[in-house]
């Protein structure tokens, strides 16, 4: 009983951490620009696919991993410069379609370049599972959780203790006021796309040794990251992390105890319930309209 429960919990927290990273990416961009970036999932895919590509090209693993984070970050910045900045202030529908278009371009290019095969990456520190109270835990899960925790702490530090971070927060509260006090909001936009892409890519790299990767994994991972961000109250960083973990755990428990065929449906059932009963998300604040 306990072993089974722990087993589901471990796999839930692991995949939940990836959703949390994706949800943080959604949150960063949403706060900087009110854009819901539907290309976020493709950054996750890019991270995993590029890590595989660079390591198979013979680069040492750490170099391959750094490149697999840097390249998506550059892609994110290019996306922002070419497609988001020129239409600043457009209707949300327009912005959503642009990011959906971007996701198709990225996915299509990877499909043409690397093909439709499924790839894997060796685990960072071996495949010998740890035994904990009868449940098994892969060492890679510890990597996922450890690095996610470090990222969350680093982000907290960035937003609360550095000038750039505070500028980003100020922009998310009130763009015009931020501009008035001399914050370069274009730079904030730039930074938030680079950071979200890097976060997504990091998640994609970390999870690849556990779940494999292919050109189309970004769709589901991205959508679930979006669910996690909304569960946490869109725009709330801590909420995004908790939302990610919650979605991951719920999915694993649902797959284990209810039906594995409906595993992918769980996050979406959750989001409908939350929208019905707690529409601001679990951790979202109240909002008011100015007329």
């Amino acid at each position, binding site marked *: 009983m306990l072993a089974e429960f722990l087993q589901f919990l471990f796999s839930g927290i692991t995949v939940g951490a990836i959703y949390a990273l994706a949800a943080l990416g959604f949150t960063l961009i949403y706060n900087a620009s009110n854009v819901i970036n539907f290309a976020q999932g493709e950054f996750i895919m890019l991270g995993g696919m590029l890590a595989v590509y660079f390591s198979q090209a013979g680069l040492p693993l750490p170099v391959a991993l750094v490149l697999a984070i840097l390249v998506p970050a550059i892609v994110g910045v290019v996306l922002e410069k070419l497609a988001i900045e020129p239409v600043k202030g457009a209707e949300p*529908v*327009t912005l959503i379609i642009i990011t959906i278009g971007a996701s198709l371009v990225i996915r*299509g290019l990877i499909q043409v370049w690397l093909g439709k095969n499924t790839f894997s990456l060796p685990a960072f520190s071996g495949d010998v599972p740890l035994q904990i109270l009868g449940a098994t835990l892969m060492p890679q899960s510890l990597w996922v959780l450890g690095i996610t925790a470090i990222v969350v702490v680093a982000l907290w530090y960035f937003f609360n203790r550095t000038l750039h971070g505070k500028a980003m927060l100020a922009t998310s509260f009130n763009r015009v006021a931020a501009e008035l006090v001399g914050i370069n909001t274009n730079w904030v936009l730039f930074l938030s796309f680079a950071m979200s892409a890097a976060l997504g890519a990091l998640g994609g790299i970390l999870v690849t040794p556990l779940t494999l990767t292919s050109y189309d994994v970004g769709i589901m991972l991205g959508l679930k990251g979006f669910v996690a961000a909304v569960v946490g109250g869109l725009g709330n960083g801590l909420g995004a992390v908790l939302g990610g973990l919650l979605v991951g755990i719920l999915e694993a428990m649902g797959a284990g105890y209810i039906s594995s065929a409906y595993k992918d*449906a769980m996050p*979406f059932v959750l989001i*409908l319930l939350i929208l019905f009963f707690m529409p601001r998300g679990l951790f979202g604040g109240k909002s008011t309209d100015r007329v």
Partner: protein
Amino acid sequence: MSKNPYLGLYIIMAVLLVLPFVLPNSFYVDLAIRMAINAVIVLGLNLLIGFAGQISLGHAGFLGFGAYATAVLPTHFGWHPLLAMAAGAVAAGALAAIVARPIFKLKGHYLAMATLGLGIIINIVVRTEAQWTGGPDGMPVPAMSLAGFEISGDKHWYWLVALVLSVSVWASLNMINSPFGRALRALHGSEVASKVVGVDVVRYKVAIFVLSAMFASFMGSITAHYVGFVTPNLADFFHSIELVTMVVIGGMASVYGSVVGAVLLTALPQALTSFEGWETVAFGAILMLSMIFMPKGLVPTLSARFGRGD
């Protein structure tokens, strides 16, 4: 408003009348039928996006609802196809109402999220419940007959779909100029202002969402009968995106834009097949470019340029 808002309708009807005599072979007739089917779905979706200012990212789910009602009810329960079609539309409308009511009280992207979730759940259900739906492989749809007259073959379907399209365009034009339509437009202009003049915002938004869901379900049934087979792809996320794209490219809140968007994007995959493997890239690039350079969509942009209203 232009001098005669029905001018476009006459042009569409004229084209529909002439088309079957000039199309070289059944491949093009099939393409024309699919364009017309998409145009009707997009008309319904555009009422929601263009007038209520809300996005549905799960509209293919409603399409799938109708398609599977048409396939499953007659096959497993012996229902009459028309009854199945009506049941699908009513059920889709009811589902839309249940989902929309709490969500329209919120502002922002929440309907997008809810419809996205709903669409994905519907898709997973039809993929999983294979004993009823045939699972990922899909299932055949029994033929439809009206009063002993079986509708089969391209010709029958072409005229049926052409009729449905003409009526839909006519009805949409009339609706936009009705009190209901004016309320919707006011809503898109300023929600607060329309509240102040007494428009029940939530009720109107729910009504338009239910209507567009029923449109989609009905056309899903038509598609299922026409193709003679349903697969879960009809109800997947990508198809929902395609439908939204048709709305946006043609022009939000533009009746004729819906038709143009549907025609262009239905033809696009055919035009792109020669690009072997690059279709997705090209599709995505077209989406991005048209939104960056023509955010209002094709028809409103062009008609503004040539100096007449839409």
